[in-house]
């Protein structure tokens, strides 16, 4: 095979086919349709298979990116899936929702000169192919006697559960809702992440032996302390998400028609409110919807509103487009779909009619001043610039505060903002209890939560004295595929464990 160079590879990033904006605003089908085999093969040619790849370190779960892309290039698609699932059980989900442009693709060597290799699109393509083909990698698992409880079935819990199940632990995952998936299910709309994709990749988790218990509100049905002391869990991971939506405290927030993006999205995504009255949960969508905030959740809320028939959807953001925290792709999609963006605009009051319903929003224009603590220029109100526009629904998508339930029901230490305090191994103040994801960091992304879940799994394995096979995966290519103890060392499927001298739920030392 001839050596690839930046000059010999396809210069243009292979575009992904998309539904046209005027069509997609009337349906909940996926916007990005995914690569064809030809697209994927063409794009795989663009990866230089760098000897010192930066993309792997750029990935929160350290996927062997050149490894799987090279397999695609060799048309060994199953091999590509095997490489992906060494690090990530959910390529079809992550390929869709990861902000690759600020992770693997940001540090891509090709990206220094040309557009970066479309890692996310290739990952999704393999993930989708695996679902179509019915592939799943259930490794040989040597059972150990440890019982693990996972609180929350969102991305952090999923990643942690998968790693511990593969290490041989008996894993039970608890979810308060009646369907598992956490934010993947209730938060991210179908047009970005279809439910069948979530179902298919969650199925892989149950194939690994993870038990999923829905309708279980940990903390209240039983406490963290009970899990460790009475229910026989050797370790617990908390991945409950942040989930306590913020409001601004401006007048009019209790009017009917004002709600959080979490509520809007949950009603639609989980409860099927778009299909009311066939589904019993109503939404009472407005005709003119104003969404406050400009992150990914705001984009989702606006685009859901548009699809459900809102005539006008406004976005209010106090900073400018450049500072918008949404992924550029999401922002562009929203712009194409006709969202009316009011940059440098902050609401100051929500106005109601005589019946207590929203009728208008009063805003003030902002300008950017000196940089603030986040390094972004601080928005400053422009005096005398207030104006109103009509709205009958106002949606808050300005982030969340910490959910208080764990703190209310256990002695676990919280930081001053109410998030769970952990050390750098994600251990909490309770022995054997670990935490990660939004409930530790505050609102972030799916993949960062998955990264935290994996990190906690490593710490839990250390805590329990399970000798991790992580080193096996770090073997270089020449050792890959050699067999140890009758098992392929290149597969993440084998754990050598020792029984700890002390009891597993004894003190850490």
């Amino acid at each position: 095979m001839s050596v690839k160079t930046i000059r010999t590879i396809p210069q243009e990033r292979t575009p992904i086919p998309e539904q046209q904006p005027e069509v997609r605003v009337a349906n909940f089908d996926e916007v990005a349709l995914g690569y064809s085999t030809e697209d994927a093969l063409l794009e795989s040619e663009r990866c230089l298979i760098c000897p010192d790849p930066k993309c792997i370190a750029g990935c929160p779960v350290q996927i062997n990116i050149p490894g799987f892309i090279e397999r695609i290039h060799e048309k060994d698609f199953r091999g590509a899936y095997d490489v992906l699932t060494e690090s990530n059980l959910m390529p079809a989900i992550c390929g869709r929702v990861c902000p690759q442009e600020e992770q693997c693709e940001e540090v891509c060597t090709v990206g220094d000169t040309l557009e970066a290799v479309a890692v996310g699109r290739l990952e999704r393509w393999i993930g989708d192919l695996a679902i179509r083909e019915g592939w799943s990698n259930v490794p040989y698992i040597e059972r150990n006697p440890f019982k693990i409880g996972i609180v929350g079935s969102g991305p952090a819990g999923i990643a942690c559960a998968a790693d511990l199940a593969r290490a041989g632990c008996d894993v039970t995952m608890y979810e308060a809702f009646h369907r598992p998936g956490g934010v993947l299910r209730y938060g991210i709309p179908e047009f970005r992440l279809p439910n069948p994709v979530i179902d298919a990749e969650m199925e892989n988790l149950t194939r690994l032996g993870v038990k999923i218990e829905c309708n279980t509100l940990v903390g209240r049905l039983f406490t963290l302390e009970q899990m460790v002391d009475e229910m026989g869990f050797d370790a617990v991971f908390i991945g409950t998400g942040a989930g306590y939506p913020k409001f601004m405290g401006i007048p009019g927030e209790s009017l009917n028609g004002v709600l959080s993006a979490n509520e809007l999205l949950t009603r639609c995504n989980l409860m099927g409110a778009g299909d009311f009255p066939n589904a019993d949960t109503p939404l009472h969508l407005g005709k003119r919807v104003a969404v406050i905030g400009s992150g990914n959740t705001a984009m989702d809320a606006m685009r859901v509103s548009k699809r459900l028939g809102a005539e006008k959807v406004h976005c209010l953001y106090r900073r400018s487009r450049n500072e918008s925290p949404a992924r550029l792709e999401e922002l562009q999609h929203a712009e194409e779909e006709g969202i009316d963006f009011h940059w440098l605009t902050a609401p100051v009051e929500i106005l109601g009619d005589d019946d207590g319903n929203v009728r208008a929003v009063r805003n003030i224009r902002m300008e950017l001043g000196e940089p603030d603590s986040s390094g972004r220029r601080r928005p400053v109100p422009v005096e005398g610039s207030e104006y109103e526009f009509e709205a009958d629904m106002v949606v808050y998508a300005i982030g969340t505060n910490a959910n208080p339930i764990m703190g209310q029901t256990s002695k676990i230490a919280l930081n001053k903002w109410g998030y769970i305090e952990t050390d750098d191994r994600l251990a909490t103040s309770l022995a054997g209890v670990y935490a990660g994801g939004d409930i530790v960091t505050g609102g972030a992304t799916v993949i960062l939560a998955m990264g935290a879940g994996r990190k906690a799994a490593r710490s839990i394995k250390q805590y329990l004295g399970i000798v991790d096979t992580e080193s096996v995966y770090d073997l270089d290519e020449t050792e890959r595929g050699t067999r140890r103890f009758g098992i392929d060392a290149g597969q993440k499927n084998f754990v050598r464990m020792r029984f700890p001298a002390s009891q597993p739920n004894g003190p850490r030392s």
Partner: protein
Amino acid sequence: MYEIVARQDLSETTYLLEVAHPQLARAARPGQFVIVLSHEQGERIPLTIADFDGERGTVTLVIQAVGKSTKEMQQLCQVGRSLLAVVGPMGLPTAVNDVRKVVCVGGGLGVAPVFPQLRAHKNNGAYTIGVIGFRNRDLMFWKDKFARYCDDLIICTNDGSEGIAGLVTDGLAAAMKEHDDIDEVIAIGPPIMMKLCAEATRPRSIKTTVSLNPIMVDGTGMCGGCRVSVGGEMKFACVDGPDFDGHDVNFEELINRLRRFDSDEREAMDRWSEQCRLMNDG
């Protein structure tokens, strides 16, 4: 799935379900609530726990058939059938310590959820006064159950067919006249009733606890639909409540927010009634 092990029809519109859920029955405390979902297309309905029995492993819910979902449940929820989801116990439990004399006021559907609080106070050694109100004697339920845990029981009916003729506020006034050493009043019922109880106790500064049941989806603090104003601050009833100081609650706001889906609820109700009519005709 959570099996219905007993059912009792308390009136044409009010029914009691006893649901098997041993873990929940052990964990439940007075003042807490559950969310139930009867089927895949159903909605999540918050219901205050009316009773729980750790030994039998059941929780008791008293439901008023007011909308499509609760009327449909009235038809579907027979003994032996199951609910798709029963999740809880949610909310902060009521604090029952240090109260020597307490009045527990239950109006209409509030009669059932105030019972666990009454029992807890009685078991804690408090002098308990029950004030329960119904429109008329036919709608009355749990008289004996209350009598067992009350030092005084005042029953109020609108038409005087049982006990005193009047509203629970009249019963509360009678109790306050009789006793000048009431430590706490707990009032559960429709928002307007809780508001009137809070107004009745305000002049004497008697601590008055109310249990709020606003519209919510998840019940875990995630959606914020249940936000209420208490003492000028925004609180989420599901995780900061559902019990609040009745003197601080903005009831007008609560009442308005409970009307949020009125037109949708009417639409769902009309459509469902029509479907039932067609099915019966067919």
